[in-house]
């Protein structure tokens, strides 16, 4: 009797809970944005906004965090005060791996919270948009003309605008772009008898430079990011630049790259580096491997390292970098990434690169959409973009600013003049992050000692799952 009633109670409770749950999941997101008034609180005299960014003073992307909290926010507050609005802007910094930042952000957004404005990587725009976590700017701001008439758009090149767009709609304002090169340590190169103006013409040239560097004691010749621990850095700094060097891209005519000869060439190159002592396989497996590779390069222990200009600006930068090199300007050289063989690159190019970048987007659930849009424009005005550089150079989103600032930095004008014309962007498709994870896993397998063929066929399976069907994947 007693146990029966207990059972009944449990049953009733369970049924009630299930009834509550059914239909709760996700679907409540649907109508809500349409129901929200884009002009809510438009005339508020007291406004609170939060900016979220994966940067933190004294740590990751320190200069960016310093700019946001010490320059942009006070200027914007003063500007708004002039208009009679009392604005408080908070900076919500983060200093974690990009993947962790993304997880945190998506959890916040799925619960309709999170900062009012936040910076995201261009490749997340697709999946965030599909999930309804972000909306086209014209929806959030409510007035298409207001968004499209912003004079800043004219200064931002199409290819860069794509970083903040999905399906032809603008979701945010991009924050500049970058380009990838091979960095090398000129001091080590001199010791190994290699030229200070090194420019490899093929993958074999990279290997032979590596073999020369290998003779130096305690030096890891080459660091090409591999494995899953480095996340997107593996895909962006390693796999994709190599892949475009074989003439293939990760998505061609709507089909994802499968187990093709080009993929196997890339994996063979990884195998060649990490099985012959030209690279350090352990570093690719360590949880903090990428940070360690930076530290080792700065300590003159790595000869050649593939990275974006971020490395020059924020890693080995002598004052605020995470792995400062006091003699950066004389010790660090750079070269274009060669195609596998001259002319074998995508579009028949001899040299290749990959570019990416982030965008700042507005949280559709912000209390103050109009003020957030105002802050977003203010942030991307020529004055503020220039101020964000603080004397240093960086490839910004705005052409007017670039033409002024890039000349002062030889590395960055190299990126702007030589790299951007030959570069490729990642496809802004929602499946991309899953494909990217599969590529990382394939390199992890190769570094761990699996054969290229085994890694490539496992990759094929993963891509078929990620893409949804075999028809959306190329092979052989």
């Amino acid at each position: 009797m007693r146990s029966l009633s207990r059972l009944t109670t449990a049953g009733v409770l369970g049924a009630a809970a299930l009834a509550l749950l059914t239909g709760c999941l996700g679907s409540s997101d649907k109508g809500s944005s349409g129901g929200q008034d884009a002009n809510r609180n438009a005339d508020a005299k007291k406004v609170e906004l939060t900016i979220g960014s994966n940067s933190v003073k004294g740590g990751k992307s320190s200069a960016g965090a310093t700019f946001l909290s010490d320059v942009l926010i006070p200027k914007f507050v003063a500007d708004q005060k002039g208009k009679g609005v009392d604005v408080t802007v908070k900076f919500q910094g983060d200093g974690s791996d990009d993947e962790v930042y993304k997880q945190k952000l998506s959890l916040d957004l799925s619960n309709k919270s999170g900062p009012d404005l936040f910076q995201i990587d261009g490749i997340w725009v697709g999946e965030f948009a599909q999930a309804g976590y972000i909306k086209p700017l014209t929806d959030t701001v409510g007035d298409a003309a207001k968004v499209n008439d912003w004079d800043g758009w004219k200064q931002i090149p199409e290819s860069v605008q794509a970083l903040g767009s999905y399906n032809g709609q603008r979701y945010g304002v991009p924050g500049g772009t970058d380009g990838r090169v091979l960095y090398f340590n000129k001091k080590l190169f001199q010791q190994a008898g290699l030229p200070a103006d090194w420019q490899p013409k093929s993958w074999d040239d990279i290997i032979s430079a590596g073999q020369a560097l290998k003779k130096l004691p305690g030096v890891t010749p080459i660091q090409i990011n591999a494995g899953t621990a480095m996340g997107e850095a593996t895909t962006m700094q390693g796999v994709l630049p190599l892949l475009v060097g074989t003439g293939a891209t990760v998505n061609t005519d709507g089909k994802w790259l499968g187990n093709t000869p080009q993929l196997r060439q890339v994996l063979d190159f990884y195998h060649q580096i990490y099985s012959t002592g030209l690279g350090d396989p352990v570093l690719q497996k360590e949880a903090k491997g990428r940070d360690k590779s930076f530290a080792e390069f700065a300590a003159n222990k790595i000869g050649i390292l593939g990275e974006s200009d971020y490395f020059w600006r924020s890693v080995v930068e002598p004052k605020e970098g995470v792995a400062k090199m006091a003699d950066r300007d004389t010790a660090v050289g750079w070269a274009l990434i060669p195609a596998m063989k001259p002319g074998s690159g995508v579009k028949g190019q001899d040299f290749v690169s990959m570019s990416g970048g982030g965008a700042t987007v507005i949280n559709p659930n912000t209390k103050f959409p109009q003020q957030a849009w105002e802050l977003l424009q203010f942030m991307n005005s020529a004055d503020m973009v220039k101020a964000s550089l603080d004397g240093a150079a960086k490839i910004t989103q705005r052409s007017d600013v670039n033409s002024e600032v890039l000349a002062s930095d030889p590395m960055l004008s190299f990126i702007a003049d030589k790299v951007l014309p030959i570069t490729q962007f990642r496809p802004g498709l929602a499946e991309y992050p899953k494909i990217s994870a599969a590529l990382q896993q394939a390199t992890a397998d190769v570094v761990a000692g699996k054969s290229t063929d085994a890694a490539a066929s496992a990759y094929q399976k993963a891509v078929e799952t990620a893409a949804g069907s075999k028809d959306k994947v190329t092979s052989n």
Partner: protein
Amino acid sequence: MTSASAPVRGRTPARDVAGLGVGRAFGFVAPAFLLIGAFLIFPALWTIYIGITNYRLTGVEAVSPSIVGLSNYTKALNDALFHNALWLTMVFVLGSAIIGQNVLGFTLAWIMRRTRPAVRRTVEAFVLLAWILPSTVVAYLWVAFFDRDGGTLNGLLGTQGTAWLIDYPMACLVVFNTWRGTAFSMMLYSSALQAVPPSQLESARMVGASGWQTLRDVVFPHIRGHVLTNTLLISLWTANDFSPFLLTKGGPNHESETVPVYIYNVALQGGELGYSSAISFLLLIANLLVSLVYLRLLRRRS
């Protein structure tokens, strides 16, 4: 496992001993029911529910997930990485809990029995410290200990350049978790050993029993229940422990990805919330099964 109401157990329904009446009695237990409902039953049902959908952290399925029936479960059964995670969890539980913490905890308790109180307190304090420190702090210390460049262990052994967490991830985790959780076993066995009648130990010594014989024939029969309870608790805790993530993130290349870490990686790294919920539910079932087996054993003893 007999309850306090044992005298009236069986045929007649329980009489209202406290004189509260049903309504008031229910009022007294209602807060407990609410808490259990909100924090145990509801999340468990929620997990079951998400487990039959294709809910994701981002993308289309985050807005409009659909019911996919049992396909998450069939996927798990064929998932090589899940099998890998199960195997690693078994290694982890067996190595660090059933053997590591049990044996070390008992050994410490056995040795500390006779030592001077000052020594005992000091040792206990250190062992307890390992148990009560926050996981993140402890993980940081162990990462520094195992580190390849300038790690303490390499410094002690003179093996510079050995990446312990990369080359021997599971062994490192087993050592780490043994160190971390021994305090509980030690304390439990310390009090259990006090229940062994000194006269019996004395007799054993008089008839010339060796140390091992004394343990096996005199001490163990007295503490068998404690051994079972302890083993049950620590193996459940260890199976569900997430701190391996703080040391290795499940790497390198899934070599230390125990089930809880796998669930996390699938859910947040891969964004597959539906699939990870299904695996969570399987873990829950496994926990229940293990508990049932232990309870059986305990009951048979009494």
